[in-house]
């Protein structure tokens, strides 16, 4: 067996090794935390909104290569997009990760994640950043966490 992987293609390994936009944003207008309780992935997403437009995006946190590469690409892709445009991307990515969206409908950078659709146990890692973006845009309350006791 050779040292290649169906899922860990070079683009994912690269975004994992050198994540883009991996920083705390001092002047963020929205800050949203996302956790994947079963895996322990956690990230904080920072957005600087300029009216309806995402002027800047960054993230911090710890997690696996999939969640990290996904957050890295996501923050790169949504910069400059409007809320509505970003929402479309969220839907597209969720579709990809669950095997519902055809590859051709997607920005090329995201296609590397097509492999997760065959790995239901990793879907949550891949979509965590996107879910968090969705919540941040909806300005809704927290993520998967319930009431503290």
């Amino acid at each position, binding site marked *: 067996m050779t040292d290649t992987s169906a899922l860990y293609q070079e683009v994912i390994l690269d975004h994992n090794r050198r994540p883009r936009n991996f920083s705390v944003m001092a002047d963020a207008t929205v800050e949203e935390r996302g956790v994947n309780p*079963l895996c322990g992935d956690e990230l904080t997403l920072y957005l600087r909104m300029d009216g309806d437009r995402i002027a800047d995006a960054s993230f911090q946190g710890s997690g696996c290569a999939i969640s990290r590469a996904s957050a890295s690409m996501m923050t790169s892709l949504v910069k400059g997009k409007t809320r509505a445009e970003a929402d479309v991307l969220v839907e597209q990515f969720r579709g990809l990760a669950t095997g519902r969206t055809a590859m051709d409908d997607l920005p090329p950078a995201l296609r590397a994640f097509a492999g997760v659709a065959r790995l*239901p146990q990793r879907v949550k890692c891949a979509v965590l950043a996107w879910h968090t973006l969705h919540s941040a845009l909806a300005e809704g309350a927290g993520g998967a966490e*319930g009431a503290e006791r």
Partner: protein
Amino acid sequence: MSALVPRSDFSLLSTNPNLVYLDSAATAQKPRAVLDAMNDFYETDYANPHRGAYALSARATERYASARGAVARFFGVGDEACVIFTRGTTDSLNMVASAWGRANLGAGDEVIVTGAEHHANFVPWQQIAIERGAQFTICPLAADGRADVEALATLVSGRTKVIAFNHVSNVLGAINPVSEIVAIARAVGALTVCDGAQAAPHMFVAFDALGVDFYAASAHKMLGPMGTGVLIGRREVLDAMPPYQTGGDMIAFVGDERTTWNVLPHRLEAGTPNVAGAVGLAAACDYLTAIGMDAVAAHERALVRLAYERVSALDDVRVHGPSGSERSGVLSFTVGDIHPHDLATLLDERGICIRAGHHCAQPLMRRLGVAATARASFYIYNDENDVDQLAEALESAKRVFAVA
């Protein structure tokens, strides 16, 4: 009237062709399809779900999720996360009485149950009422054994926090007027907890339309495996209910001092789930759905009507509960002064299985004025011959005991 399904679907029944199994209200025999589904899970997709990061575990997780989907459809539940897998009806009802009750009942509050409850829907409420200093009220029964809704309407007040009642009585086969009870409860802001152990196997439950807040059932009474059951709840009440058991994957974050919880359904399912049990229950639901729950209900009504006629025609026999056409497939009776246990033993000598005793419903026995009853119950594998055998055996028993 022949059986609704081939006896050959059930190994135990086909290897015992003369067995007259009339105790399905206690537990139902298993079709091969149910055992095969569980074996297949163990032999092809077995792993701990939720916890593994490999394909086999993902398949186990998927089996569990799709079993939940099948069970949700069977019970008419749109929101699958509101189907909580439990150990059985007793576990489900204890969960509600403990977790909901401890959080919501206080001194001066009232808990109402009916006088026809199985111990599983009676004792947990009695005990939590004692613990919380709440009042425990027993709703009287109408002559046919159903909850006396007029009495109930006068009993309830703003202090009434919960009304727990059976959908179908395990002793009488009486079918409770669910929507009337729900209306009475809603009028005073009380929750409703419905024990569906004897309904789910026999009729389409349609949870979303039923209006109750909680619904409980056992897999083993509906062709499924032992050790599995469901608690179904409306999302608002489930979301507001504290966890019952803690551990495993029902958490979000476990701190040294505080813990936060996962979302439904996980929050209410602590520990490694019984995937095999859920798969077996789902297979049972599919088996029943393939027959059609209307056909199941019609078959049982027809059999029990016939049994009612044959048995109540005997001298010195008292049949409890509603007349033949208004009952689910359960017939409780007493024969002269023959003790039900003796009756059951005599029938057993002829290969006829009936149950005798208080049927875990001592409060109802007191209200019926008997110590015990004999009970015959019917399911999809029973036929007219089973009814004939029952009636003949009762006549013979009377002769042995020289009754009448």
